[in-house]
């Protein structure tokens, strides 16, 4: 669990990891040492105030440099919201996120459909499963060239889509994408806010965290 200046949801995401049976480890943006963790989560928030572009300055931090190297060797990485923006900025995931089409910060419970489960972060979901998970973002409009988008669609890399209503104007209702290998995943909705009915609209988000714990336990 990486904390940047301006991260907001690192504590919630750490709580989600615990609830799923994992042990959260705090990592610091300015420290390249990722303490031999089995997986990395880049949480939501507004790292470095979203100055320049959302995620742009965080993508230059020492910890992200290590994460990029390890991701190439198969380290599972999950980017949530601002974390997704960082993964796109650093080139681990294709595309970019721009200002919402409606220009408003959107915060609501969002219906989603799982389109692909070829990832250690998704083993406890099934294709076609519908989820309700909160979205909250100002720059969540997914953008990519038409050719690249059709390539993503063909290879199943668009793993999560908004249904019923598109909150931010994302192309093809894209809510989340994975890399070709499946170890790197990014999404705008916040699964860590949907792990407990006391505080969230559902427990649909817990699957991301239980999936990675189960994947690692099975592998380890």
């Amino acid at each position, binding site marked *: 669990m990486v904390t940047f200046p301006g991260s907001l949801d690192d504590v919630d995401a750490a709580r989600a990891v615990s609830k799923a049976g994992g042990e959260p480890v705090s990592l610091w943006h300015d420290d390249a040492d990722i303490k031999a963790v089995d997986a990395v989560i880049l949480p939501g928030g507004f790292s470095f105030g979203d100055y*320049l*572009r959302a995620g*742009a300055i965080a993508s*230059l931090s020492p910890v992200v440099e290590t994460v990029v190297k390890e991701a190439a060797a198969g380290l599972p990485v999950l980017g949530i919201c601002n974390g997704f923006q960082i993964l*796109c*900025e650093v080139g681990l995931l*294709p*595309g*970019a996120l*721009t*200002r*919402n*089409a*409606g*220009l408003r910060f959107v915060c609501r419970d969002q219906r989603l459909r799982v389109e692909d489960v070829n990832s250690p972060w998704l083993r406890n979901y099934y294709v076609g499963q519908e989820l309700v998970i909160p979205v909250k973002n100002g720059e969540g*409009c997914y*953008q*990519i*060239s038409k050719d690249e988008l059709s390539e993503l669609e063909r290879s199943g890399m668009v793993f999560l889509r908004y249904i019923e209503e598109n909150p931010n*104007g994302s192309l093809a209702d894209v809510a989340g994408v994975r890399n070709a290998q499946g170890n790197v995943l990014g999404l705008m909705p916040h699964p860590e806010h949907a792990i407990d009915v006391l505080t969230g609209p559902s427990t649909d988000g817990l699957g991301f965290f239980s999936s990675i714990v189960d994947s690692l336990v099975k592998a380890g």
Partner: protein
Amino acid sequence: MTERVTVQVWLKEAVLDPQGQAVQKALTREGLPGVKSVRQGKAFFIEFEDESGKSQEDLNQLIEKLARDLLSNPVIEDFQVIWPSEPDARVIDYLEGDA
């Protein structure tokens, strides 16, 4: 000698620019006739004193790389480097007045 570089960045033609659209509506509302399009971008006014002895060629390449990889995101944005750049007098007045 102080070097001045201006880097302008704006969204590619194919990328939706909702801020530009909102400004377009406001310009029309304020009476500018026939506004066809507004694209909102940003500009970086950079000043540096080069004592590194880097060649002009190396500096050119470095600045272009920084404009492409840091100041803009090539997935969604285009950029233009203006160097040497003399900000116009009003810009200088504003910057000095601000300090």
